[in-house]
């Protein structure tokens, strides 16, 4: 792969990727570029904050308000869960209940519970219960079938 880096004095910062075939290296750069284009705008103490998807542990709606949880902070966002599913759209984000989306890459461990439920322990120690309604799709997501 050829690398070309130009330091310009004016204009907008721009990242251009030219590729003929999507190999492993190209796929990694593509994933980075797609992810960087998907930052979320959140609010904390009336201040606007840009949230990177890789920092998100889980997203939850409470009383029609949507909150994004990272390891250190909680941000309010003006999106619905459906919009966030579309926006994030990556395999690592999984709708684990009616009111929650979890980031599978931030799961530390899983535990099988009775009635086909799954307890997911996140980085930071939170426990997320995946109900039986969503558990079978979660298993399929882990296996790459979904």
């Amino acid at each position, binding site marked *: 792969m050829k690398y070309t880096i130009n330091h310009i004095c004016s204009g907008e910062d721009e990242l251009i990727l030219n590729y003929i075939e999507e190999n*492993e290296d190209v*796929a*990694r*750069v593509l*994933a*980075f570029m797609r*992810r960087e284009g998907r930052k979320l705008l959140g609010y904390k103490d009336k201040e606007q904050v840009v949230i990177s998807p*890789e920092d998100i542990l889980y997203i939850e709606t409470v009383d029609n308000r949507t909150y994004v949880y990272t390891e250190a902070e909680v941000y309010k966002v003006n999106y619905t869960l*459906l919009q966030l*599913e*579309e926006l994030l759209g*990556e*395999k*690592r984000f*999984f*709708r684990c209940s*009616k009111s929650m989306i979890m980031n*599978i*890459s931030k*799961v530390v*461990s*899983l*535990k*099988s*519970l*009775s*009635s086909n439920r*799954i307890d997911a322990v996140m980085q930071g120690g939170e426990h997320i219960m995946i109900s*039986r*309604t*969503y558990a079978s*799709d979660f*298993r399929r*997501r*882990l*296996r*790459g079938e*979904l």
Partner: protein
Amino acid sequence: MKEIKKWTLLERYLYKEIGIEFKACLYFFCILFFYSMFRITRGSWEASIIHMAEMILTAYGIGYLQVLALNNFDEGEQLRLREVLYILLCTGIYTLVAVLGDWFAGNMWMMVAFFCYMVLVYVCAFLVYKVKRDLDTRVLNEELKAFQEGLERTGQDNGY
């Protein structure tokens, strides 16, 4: 998963009903085994259909009781005092039906043995479910690790 899945009333009912029937069959066969051994020791190779009907109906009724009122205790995480009391309650009901149905020809020692046997059956059922969940936990964590490693390889986790 883009759509919120909603279970219909029928699906919810069937999910519980199938679980209860499976449980009923499990306990029925355990009781039938004990009953068969009793009959064989008495020199008989035949079983009463009436007795078997009583067994399966009792198991079905207690299955409903376990799932709807007793927190499905045999599939629980721990065997604490509450679960032990539930075991004794269900075993007591089985024993009462055995007495009323004269399953063991009025033999008091067999009643006591049956009671102890059913307590053991419940404890074994609890352990079997627990082992199943522990094995499932191991599989889940292996699949999680493979999934996260796959994300890292394609750069979707920590980035480029």
